[in-house]
């Protein structure tokens, strides 16, 4: 229903001219409308969470502007080009990651940025796009489901950037990139048996991961398991966040009336913890409405994936949609105390630049895949 209904509306209600313009711009109106609604809501919430400062909104709007330019630009490019560029982009990305580790600036105790003189650039961010691209490219060359040897190589494609990013250390991004790769493999059709085996393997890796973690990362995990153990230190975030959400109740305290956020009890309320502000001010009703909107976007993305003309497009579109979901789930899970605290923003709502542009760029690729129809291979 959801997948097809917007298309029908599209054909029925829009005047031919607008339809023509959007088609000419390779824009998927359904997806665009949903994104615009989400972004509009996001700005309203940011206005509240950011203490009603317009400066914050202005900066966010400028970033959104960049994001939309990226989206529309990418939508114009034929998916075949993405496929051809995939290995090159991946290779360049790996080199940049190595450069970050070699020469990266210190920022927030972690090396993430690469200063190219005129622009500061976070190479790990591009892997959210290029990793699904390269896996789709590699697996789509051959018959699916992939053979074991090809699967191992595809797995290697995933593990290399994930380890490099985790080393920066940027656990949040590594997690998103890793799950992006995993989803690509999943969509390519690896057997369920292998999936369960991999899951079991990952669980077994837990202790090893613990051993490799930095102290602050371990602290986060410990705090996640028992936030009350350190109520004024690392547990403070999650305790205050739960208070904000819980006190919101069913209908919320109302827009601009969240006491937890406006009285500054909730830390990082306009960035990573904005989900708690929404829950506090709009309650369970508001948050379910918002999650429904997210779900609509994700399902629309998966629908686009199923409609794609080739395997590359399918895997890429599907992976991008699922990465978007992972963003949402990891952030909401962290804020509600289901998952440990990892620095992942709430997609399209949290204040902050890089991921906003990446996500919109990803939707640009989705639109490109959806709007560049080609004939079935003969």
């Amino acid at each position, binding site marked *: 229903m959801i997948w097809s209904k917007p298309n029908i509306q599209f054909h029925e209600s829009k005047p031919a001219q607008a339809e023509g313009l959007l088609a000419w711009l390779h824009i998927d109106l359904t997806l665009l409308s949903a994104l615009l609604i989400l972004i509009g809501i996001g700005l309203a919430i940011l206005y509240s969470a950011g203490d009603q400062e317009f400066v914050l909104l202005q900066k966010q709007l400028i970033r959104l502007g960049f994001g939309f330019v990226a989206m529309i630009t990418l939508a114009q490019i034929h998916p075949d080009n993405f496929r051809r560029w995939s290995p090159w982009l991946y290779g360049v990305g790996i080199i940049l990651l190595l450069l970050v580790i070699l020469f990266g600036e210190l920022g927030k105790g972690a090396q993430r940025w690469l200063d190219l003189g005129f622009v500061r650039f976070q190479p790990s961010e591009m892997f959210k796009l290029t990793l699904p691209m390269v896996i789709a490219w590699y697996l789509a060359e051959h*018959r*699916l*489901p992939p053979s074991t040897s090809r699967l191992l190589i595809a797995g290697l494609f995933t593990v290399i950037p994930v380890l490099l990013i985790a080393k920066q250390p940027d656990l949040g991004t590594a997690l998103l990139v890793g799950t992006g790769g995993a*989803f690509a493999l*999943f*969509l390519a*059709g690896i057997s369920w048996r292998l999936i369960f085996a991999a899951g079991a393997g990952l669980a077994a890796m837990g202790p090893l991961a613990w051993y490799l973690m930095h102290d602050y990362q371990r602290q986060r995990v410990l705090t996640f398991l028992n936030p009350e153990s350190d109520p004024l230190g690392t547990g403070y975030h999650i305790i*205050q966040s*739960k*208070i*904000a*959400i*819980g*006190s*919101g*109740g*069913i209908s919320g305290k109302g827009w601009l009336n969240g*006491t*937890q956020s406006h*009285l*500054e*009890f909730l830390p990082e309320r306009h960035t990573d913890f904005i989900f708690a502000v929404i*829950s506090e001010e709009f*309650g*369970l009703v508001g*948050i*379910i409405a918002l*999650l429904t909107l*997210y*779900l609509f976007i*994700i*399902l629309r993305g*998966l629908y686009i*994936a*199923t409609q794609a003309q080739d*395997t590359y497009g*399918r*895997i890429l579109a*599907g992976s991008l949609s*699922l990465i978007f*979901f992972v963003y949402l*789930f990891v952030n*909401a*899970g962290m804020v*509600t*105390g*289901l998952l440990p605290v990892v620095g992942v923003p709430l997609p399209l709502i949290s204040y902050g630049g890089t991921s906003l542009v990446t996500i919109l760029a990803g939707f640009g690729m989705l639109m490109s895949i959806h709007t560049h129809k080609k004939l*079935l*291979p*003969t």
Partner: protein
Amino acid sequence: MPQSSIKNYLHESQLFLGRAIAASALVILLLSVLIGRLFYLQVKNHEHFTTLSQDNRVKVEPLPPTRGLIYDRKGVILAQNLPAYSLEITPEKTRDLEATIEELGKIIPISEEDVQRFRKLRKQSRRFDSIPIRVRLKEEEVARIAIHRHRFPGVDVKATLLRDYPLGVETAHLLGYVGRINEKERQIIDTSNYSGTNFIGKNGVEKSYENMLHGQVGLQQVEVNAKGRVLRVLENQPPRPGDNLNLFLDIGLQETALRALGDFNGAVAAIDIQTGGVLVLVSKPGYDPNLFVEGISAKAYRELEESPDNPLFNRAIRGQYPPGSTVKPFIGLAGLEYDVVGFHQETYCPGYYQLPGKEHKYRDWKKWGHGKVDMKKAIVESCDVYYYELARTLGIDRLHEFLYGFGFGHTTRIDLDNELPGLMPSREWKRQKRREPWYPGETLIVGIGQGYFLATPLQLASATATLANRGHRTRPRVVATIEKPDGAIMESPKIDDDLHQLDPEHWEQVIDAMASVIESPRGTAHSIQSPSYRIAGKTGTAQVFSVKQDEEYDEENVARRNRDHALFIAFAPIENPRIAIAVVVENGGHGGSVAAPIARQVMDQYLLGDTPVTPPGSAQ
């Protein structure tokens, strides 16, 4: 393209569709888990988190009441509250206390004494209390701290009202002082009423009237942000300030008495005979009570405590001195009342007295004796032999009974803390405390106010007032009226403990003899005779140093500290008694020459007002 390729394509498309559906199912499943979690937080535990959220945002702050002021009878302010800035540290919020103190010392001067006092206070405080490291900051110091404040978490400049005693040493013992509440006091106070209060009366009027001076705490519900800054007041219940106290004390008289004591240590107590109001209560030497308000340094305290002059000791109500000859009028009255002697009945004084069959000679101060002595002469010239005889005749039981009625041997129950009862010995007392029988010789020396007999200056003044009032005993009191914050004025209760009815003639006879102490040329206090009003008085000398049998007391050769205490009691005017006074001059020598003139100066000023009252200190 081969056929297999198309099949392959279809197969892959099918495979992908399956995976997409599985992914969608996973997405929906995980979102359901998320919504379940939100339901758990927002619906099931909503109340719990609402409470936490309220606790976060709403703080109840106590509003400490302003302590009541204390005035003398003429409205001169004796205790007030002055705004002052202090630099305070909350140890709990400080990372490195020692480093913080050291760094602060580079910004404003912090002396070793300040640090010591801080450590002392810290031991008595709780972790989250803020403790002053420097008090009474200058404006410039406040500004300098403000610039650097961000470097010091847990360090604050606090504007507080500090108790101030503008007359300092003059009122030290009477008023006492306030100080920081210590652990012991914390256990007995009403903690909610003191939730915003740091200070409590430690002694003197400040302690005995603590309940009235303190007032009632107010409460303020405020909304605060995460940094603890108050954003708005939700509810306000203002505090009720403490009551103001108006004392009977006349600070002008107090100053005069203090000045009149000169270089001597001692005590002066003067009572308004009609009301029992305490006009003067001096204990010298004193100390500066203002030092104690913000905590005195250990060193300064040790100096005060170890001083041989004992400045912290309130001699007026705790100094227990042998009353010496000042008790003679009272014992004379006892003799008349028990009818063991007539006023004009004579006895012979050879300069000493011997119990029948005993060798021991009880000496008179006058070596060669007074010759023939009746009661009047015995009082005027202070003959000891007469009183040895009278005491023996009366016996210790009657002496005890009669003098106890005048207030000797028990506290006057003045409205001050820590008063001592003196000692009026009795057989019973000796059996209990010394496990010994009473010896007749001990009765003799009680007759001249020596031996076990001890009295405080306040007791002497009170007994004198009773005498002046012909048996009406009015309990001495310091506070005259209590002024409530709403302006209502409460009189402190006048409490009378009357003596048994005595023969009116006996009063007049004894008072006549006391008048002659001043008016007769042979009187021991003749030098203080006043042309303007008539004084009744009695001198006394209390032995500090016991003279061995057959040895002479040589004033010049006795070290100053072992010299006799000089005493004097008096009331005036005789016709219409208004003021009763007792003076004790430690190591002063003779009551007549040293103690009596002090009493005269105080009485002159009270009755004649000849010395203009100097506006004391910088009182507003």
